């Protein structure tokens, strides 16, 4: 049963082959039994899940249900769930019981989905390995001595190990796509502004975007139908006509123009990754797509610009954690300044503090122009590169990551090397574009991801292209040994 996609589960629930309560119990049981190997869930929420499942079963009985009614999902612990601890992977919020629901949670609840629990993540989404979590690292189900990627590594790990049929994630510099690639699942980062940021704990507000993590592109399309929508409570939410993201999944790929940037296939790229991604791209050509070289000359500047802009925004966003209204407070503060500085020093982990410090520095008097303003100018160059390329082609393809999953502790003490593992993903966030990562093969037993980047609001096209590939491949159907 745990091998089914959302589309299949939807049919089984609809025809009464299984109830939501049975399905929910099955996933909760798997999570209880197998999560200790992975630490993908920070915690499950069985009471809430079973209450939602019971309600879903009634809705199905009364034929008031939709395609997602009764299907379980796990939420990244960055999304507020009313009455549930929402930690963002930080000691700072270890005692934080969210007093309201994130819009994404509200929408998926309204679609009848069942929340299984909260998934592990890098602290405040700052990381590419899920090792910076206060709750310990998550492991990769394909090789538990390796990282699942990050920051949405818990979500990727539980979906890959079939401890949840799907999960939510957030992507500021690759945090949906990179773990999806490293764990062999499908992850979509939508156009900035499509999915509400309300109740999604802020990291870098001009980059943060929530999205689906699932087995297949078809499942991601079903989730997008429920997640996307204008939200007056998010000041950068976009009002767009409602789309059915499943409507174009079956479109032919004949005539699709695929751009291949030479900057994504350099000598630094792992050989297996390069070969598998090239093979995948050839398959698109056989399916009727045409390949075209495109130029993204400022790709190498995306990491430097990102590591100014994201920490700058983070230092501002995280100033709210001051030990006064919620979250961690230090013991026996002697005065107000001591309360602020010690609560923050004790409540935040190392990587978060590093980024707050960098962000504070690049925004400080005398350095603003040289760093922050400069990074914003480079941000425009990067966006313009994409716009020029996307005038010539429909989508851009390349690897999601430079190499497959690395070992636990391999990069944790070397922040710059860790940052460089996001080389192919961060530019997409700087430009605000949508992109999807799909499984495209293995290096040994480790999954490799293909990234497909599209123009603004081209999610339906990306999902169509990904779905057509998945109809002819079975990489996304592989289950890690020990979790079958």
């Amino acid at each position, binding site marked *: 049963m745990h091998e089914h996609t959302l589309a299949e589960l939807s049919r089984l629930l609809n025809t009464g082959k299984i109830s939501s309560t049975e399905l929910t119990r099955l996933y909760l049981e798997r999570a209880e039994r197998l999560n200790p190997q992975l630490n993908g869930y920070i915690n499950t929420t069985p009471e809430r899940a079973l209450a939602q499942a019971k309600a879903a079963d009634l809705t199905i009985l009364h034929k008031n249900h939709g395609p997602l009614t009764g299907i379980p999902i796990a939420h990244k612990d960055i999304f507020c769930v009313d009455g549930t601890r929402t930690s963002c992977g930080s000691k700072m919020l270890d*005692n*934080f*019981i969210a*007093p309201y629901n994130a819009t994404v949670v509200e929408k998926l609840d309204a679609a009848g989905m069942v929340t299984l629990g909260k998934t592990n993540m890098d602290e405040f989404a700052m990381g590419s390995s899920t090792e910076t979590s206060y709750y310990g690292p998550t492991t990769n189900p394909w090789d538990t001595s390796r990282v699942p990627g990050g920051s949405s590594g818990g979500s990727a790990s539980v979906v890959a190990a079939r401890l949840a049929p799907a999960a939510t994630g957030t992507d500021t510099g690759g945090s949906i796509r990179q773990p999806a690639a490293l764990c062999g699942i499908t992850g979509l980062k939508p156009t*900035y*502004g499509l999915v509400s940021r309300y109740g999604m704990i802020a990291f870098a507000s*001009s980059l943060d975007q929530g999205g689906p993590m699932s087995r297949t592109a078809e499942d991601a399309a079903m989730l997008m139908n429920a997640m996307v929508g204008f939200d*007056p409570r998010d000041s*950068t939410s*976009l009002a767009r006509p409602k789309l059915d993201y499943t409507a174009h999944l079956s479109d032919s790929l004949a005539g699709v123009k695929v751009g291949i940037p030479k900057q994504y296939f350099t000598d630094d790229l792992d050989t297996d990754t390069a070969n598998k991604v090239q093979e995948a791209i050839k398959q698109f050509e056989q399916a009727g797509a045409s390949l075209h070289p495109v130029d993204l000359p400022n790709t*190498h*500047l995306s990491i*430097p*610009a990102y*590591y100014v802009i994201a920490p700058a925004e983070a230092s501002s966003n995280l100033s709210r954690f001051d030990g*006064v*209204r*919620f*979250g961690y*407070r230090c013991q026996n*503060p*002697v*005065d*107000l*300044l*001591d*309360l602020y*500085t010690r609560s*923050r*020093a004790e409540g*935040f982990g190392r990587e978060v*503090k*590093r980024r*707050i*410090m*960098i962000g*504070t*520095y*690049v925004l*400080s008097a005398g350095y603003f122009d*040289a*760093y922050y*303003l*400069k*990074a*914003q*100018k*480079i*941000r*425009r*160059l990067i*966006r313009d590169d994409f716009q020029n390329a996307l005038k010539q082609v429909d989508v851009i393809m390349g690897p999601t990551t430079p190499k497959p999953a690395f070992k636990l502790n391999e990069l944790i003490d070397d*922040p*710059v090397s860790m*940052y460089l593992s996001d080389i192919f993903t961060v530019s997409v966030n*700087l*430009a*605000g*574009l949508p992109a999807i990562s799909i499984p495209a093969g293995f290096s040994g037993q480790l999954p490799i991801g293909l990234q497909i980047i599209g123009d*603004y609001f081209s999610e339906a096209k990306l999902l169509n292209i990904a779905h057509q590939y998945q109809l002819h491949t079975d990489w996304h159907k592989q289950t890690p040994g020990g979790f079958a």
Partner: protein
Amino acid sequence: MSLQQSDIRTIAKLARLAVKEDELAQYQQALGSILGLVEQMQAVQTDTVAPLAHPLDIHARLRPDVVTETDQRAKFQQIAPETENGFYLVPRVIE
């Protein structure tokens, strides 16, 4: 651009982060290597490029000036470190 330990103290003060003396060297090393990475930007000529704060053409949305939130003080204060009579308590600021 290399940072001195005095710079680390200044940044920590601005960031409202308590940094212990024995952590200064670690921060100096880590922040120095991050700034080294970021330094690549300076090689690019950007005099005629306008800064881009936001990927899409988004401007501040206005709404009617009416109350939209309900009073949830009791609920919100349940998760506060210390409150009294509806107020958040902090160490005394004014004697």
